[in-house]
Every structure is written in C-alpha cells, then in structure tokens.
C-alpha cells in the first residue's frame, strides 16, 4: 500500500463534504517516503473542522510527537469512511466532536486528556480509540517510524537479514538451538 495513493484526493467523489490537508514535515519519517509532498484527504461525511478536531483526538489517544500528521489523517479517513456508510455512526461522531467543544484542538494536552477521560466510556471515544489503534500502526508511514520491516517473504525472509543479529547477549549453544539451514 502506498500512503500517497491512499491519501490522494479521490477526484471521482463529487459529494465531498470537506477536506483535510497538510504538508509532510521535513525530517519526519514520511519525508523519507515522500519528501516535500503535500497530502489531502477528501471527506465524504465529516466537515473539515470536524476532521481537524478528530485528528487532535487521535493524537491525544496515541501521542507520537514525531509521527507525521499524515499518519493520523489515515485514521480520520477511515473514520470518515465509516461515518459515510452509516447514519448512526455519523451522528455519534458529530455529537462526540460537538461535545468536545471548539476549544478542544487548541487546548494543552493535559486538558485534552481530561476531556477525553470524562467520555472514556462513550461509544464515540471507544470507537475513536479502536480506529486509532487499528489504522495508525498499519501503514507504511508507521512502519518507517517504528522501524518495523513487515513482510519479508518477498526478500527471502529474515534468515539472512538479521533474525539473529542481536549481539548484546551471549549466543545460544547449538545444543539448545540449531544450525542455519544450508
């Protein structure tokens, strides 16, 4: 999956309700993949302001300071997708955002955490938490940021690419492990 295609404006959508945009920060892990690129997410159910608030919600749930907004935008894209499929979801998201209030995105982290804690049991918060966990760590931006190398079959596995390259502990005697296959 290429993050840029995922983030690409879905031009065929004529019913866009809003737009979430950003610039890839210099020096971020995404910049390695897409130096200097702008990104945009077309919204089909949420407004730009709602999406911007949700992005801050996702950042408060999983605060990785140096992880680019583009990764969080993927979460919002998924939330928007869910909201566009189902009126109840859309309403739940809308009401959740509204209850956070206009000051939420600009408030300090401690206050944002307090606000979210108060609604921790709500369907809105729980679905935002789940979506953030599901989407934020499942894309190439996150893979690069966390150093996860992912699928390796196409490269011959990790057998000759570091599965046993740890050197800060003693090697395991052969009797308790096994020789590399020839």
């Amino acid at each position, binding site marked *: 999956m290429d993050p840029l295609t995922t983030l690409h404006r879905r031009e065929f959508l004529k019913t866009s309700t809003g737009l979430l945009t950003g610039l890839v920060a210099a020096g971020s892990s995404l910049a390695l993949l897409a130096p200097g690129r702008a990104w945009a997410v077309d919204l089909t159910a949420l407004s730009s302001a709602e999406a911007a608030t949700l992005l801050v919600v996702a950042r408060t749930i*999983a605060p990785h300071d140096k992880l680019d907004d583009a990764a969080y935008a993927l979460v919002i894209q998924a939330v928007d997708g869910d909201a566009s499929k189902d009126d109840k979801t859309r309403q739940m998201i809308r009401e959740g955002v509204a209850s956070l209030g206009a000051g939420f995105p600009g408030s300090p982290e401690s206050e944002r*955490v307090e606000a979210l804690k108060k609604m921790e049991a709500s369907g809105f918060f729980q679905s935002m938490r789940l979506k953030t966990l599901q989407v934020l760590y499942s894309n190439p931006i996150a893979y690069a940021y966390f150093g996860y190398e992912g699928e390796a079959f196409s490269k011959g596995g990790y057998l000759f*690419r570091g599965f046993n390259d740890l050197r800060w502990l003693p090697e395991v005697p052969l009797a308790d492990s096994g020789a590399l296959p020839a």
Partner: protein
Amino acid sequence: MARIDLHDEGAVVIIGSGAGGGTLAHELTRRGIPVVLLEAGKRQSTATFSQVPGEAFQQLTWLDTRTQSGSWGVARDFPGLPSWHCKTAGGTTVHWTASTPRLEPWELRAKSTYGHVPGTSLIDWPISYPELKNYYLLAERRLGVTRRNGVPGLPASNNFKVMYAGAKKLGYKRVHTGHMAINSRSRDGRGFCIQQGFCVQGCKMGAKWSTLYTEIPSAEATGKLDLRIECRAMRIEHGANGRVNAVVYRDSQGQEQRQKARLVCVAGNGIETPRLLLLSESAKFPQGLANSSDQVGRNYCHQIVGYVWGIFDQPVYSWRGATVAGVVEDEVFNDPKRGFVGGYRIELVALDLPTMPQVGLPYGWGRDFASIMEEYRNIAGLLINGEDMPRAENRITLNPEVKDAFGLPAANVHVDEHPNDQALRKHAQGQMSKMYAALGAKRIFPGPSLPATHNTCSARMSAEPRDGVTNGWGQTHDIPNLFISDGSMMSTPGSANPTLTIVALVLRQAEYISRQMAAGKI
C-alpha cells in the same frame, strides 16, 4: 478428487478440515474409505496468503457472530471475539504457530494427580500415557517435529536469545528453540523456515505444517476425498434407530444440501463442535446429539495464555523469525506448594506492529500507551501456556437471543476463571518478569489474556458416560457412528499446546474407525 453422491450412504462425513478433520480425512482415505469433508471456509494457498496482517486476519479468521459471558478478561477486552481461530481449508493449522510439545504422563491423570480441587470437574483420561505415546511418535514423524527423531532444532532468533539468557539467569535448564512442526530443513516436499515471522498470516514457504498443504492434498491423491469448501454443516440428522445418517449443510451458493452418511466425525474446533451437536436437537434427542449426560459444551477449557513483554535498552527486532520458536519447560510439573496445581510452559512470542496495540497490550491510551509503542524495536516477548481447570459451568451454549448469518443461534462462550487459573497465571507472570528483570529490562508488563486459541474439552472423553461425551476413541457414548475428532475430545487440557495431541488422538481414532468399519460394527 472423488465426487460422492449426496445419496451415497457409504461415505464418512467429516466436518472441519483443520488439525483434527484434515488429518482424519487423510488417514481414512488412505485406507480406502471414501470421505466427504465439509469445510465452511474458502481454500487459500501459499500463493494467496496475504502478507498484510489486517487482511490476513480477515482472510482466515472465523468471524461469525458469537457472544461471551463470565469473569474472564477476554469478555471485557475482546467483546464479540471470545476465540481466535480459522475458517478456511486447513482450519487453524493455517495460522497456528506450530509449537508441538507432548502432554506429560501425569497430566493424563489430572484428577488423581491433583486430588479434589473444589469447583472443578476434573477427570482422568480414559486412555493411558503409553497408549497415547505410540501415537505421539507417529504424529511427530508426520509433522516433522524439530528436536525429535533426529530432526535438527530451529536456529536461535534475537527474541529467543533474550529469552534464553533470562531463563539461564533464573537457573532454568530445559530451554531450547522448541519442538516445532516447522521444517528446519527441507522435508516432505516442503521448504525450510526462512524466519519470516509471518506464521500467523499463513506460511508462504509451506515450512510450517498445515493440513492445507500436507494431509488434504495427500487425501485428494488417494482419489477417495470429496472436499467441499464453503460448505457449512447446519445439523446432523439421525434415523429411527438413533444412529446418525446425514448432514444437512449450506453450500457455497447458500443452497441447503443433505449428504447421507455412514459415519459422522465432527472436527469444527472446540466451540463449533459442541454447538453443532446442540443445534442437532431432535424429538428423540431434545438436548442435542450425544448429550444424554448433559455434558456437551461443558468443561470448556482454553488454557491460560497471556503475554509478558520486556523493554530493553537495545533493539530486539522480535518480529524477525519464527514467532513461537522457543520454550522453557522447567515449570511443567505439579507441586501445590507453588499455590496451584498443574504446570505451564513459557514460550517465545512476538507480534507484528499492527497487531501489537490491538491484541498485545493491556487496555490503554495516551502518553503511557504511546511510550510503549515508541519502544517497539526494543520489545522482547514471552507467552504463558498453562493448564486451566475444567468447570461444569464453563461452557458453550446456544444463545437464544443472538443469531448468526444463517439464522442459527450463536455460540455463547462462558468462562469464570477458577482461583487456580489466576494463581497459575500470577506465578507464570512473576517468573517471566524475573527473567527479563535479570537482564536489566527497563520496563516489564503483562499483556491481556488473548481470545481463546486452544479450545478444548467441550465434548470430552470419559471412562464413565455420565462424566463426558465420548469414550476413549472419541466415539460418542450415545451414538456409535458419531465421533468427535478434534480438541473437544480432550479430557483435560494439560499444559502442552494441544495440536500434537489432537493429531495423535485422531491417528489413533482413524485406526479404530477403520477396524470397526471392517468388522461391520459401525
């Protein structure tokens, strides 16, 4: 591949093509017995396995509606997903991690060994260890288990180096890369493990044993197997004589079909197997099939399975390498002085990045949660695999309120943890934490109990018909031509991962079935 007529009364119908059903299909067909193998899932292959974790999960997992209740943590942490197993040709052997230890002799005598443990429904197995051992030997050859029969062990991964060093600091002696049904060398027409670490997404090397590309093709090669994928058994029917004679199923087009049967073997994994027996209630058997003892679905066990993670100063890259290739066996003994009966294994584990926050970590969010994920490279992992206690009330039932997509009552999985389960888990987490602490881990923390992966004992073998559902061959006490052919038949779970035992029991059952059929008894 055979085509068996729906009206053919001579075939054995097996439900489920996983560890139990897939192996049984091969064993019967190679003895010339025609088999219809019904499998609810689709058929994938090493070529079609997705290497995107989320996609692989969707591709392979049994995601039908289920409910759950009871005090176990899974009910709280994983609503709607009490168990994690497959719906696909090859069953859960497509995404298992292939650790294949044996049970210990005393684990087969659980009741005698542990004595009276209040609040449990412990029994002894109706078969002896020496009897089972013969079939362990056969099963280990069949699966190519490492460190048995001269098969070399797997090499040590980074994650295992951490486990090994910690275990040695604690004085553990029996620590190695495991008895694994994973080829350390090419064997049986399949390649060797290239340590890609995607065991749970389906092994694209075919290095890991799965009935999908071992037993099922071998059975097909006999010309006696009729494998019907995307075919969901809905109910087992019987005649006036009380013997089963047909299986009603929905085919891939959603059409209802009725396959006549000489014999029916149920191998749908420990939740669907008792569910199908319960769904097959009739005027003659109002409590469901083989349930005159009221034991179908009861005594459900899933083993104590849970993570302990350690964060280190330096990278571990735990995702590189065979997921569960490492074990400490020193805690597999029974000594009530530890505060519990039964034993546990400490096994190696890693989770890919997308799965880690969803399944591996305790509930959380915010700075603390994120700070753990920031250290993903430096995390090493361990898994408890311990014996849990059977209880009559821990059971699979039909939920009258909730229906699946076919309109049938969903399975409800109820588990109240026994104090013994909690004491065992606490001890295990303590020992595992000490292993990492001895190496100077920066932070050590347990993960949640994961959705049940080892569903067992829910239609168990018992010497006394009133204590269980089947005799020592997996033949139901009530109906001679109805067999249980998966982990549901285990009398108690023990502390070994169950699949080698399932395969051994099924190899033994296949001999019995073919002898009994030849003698005209069934």
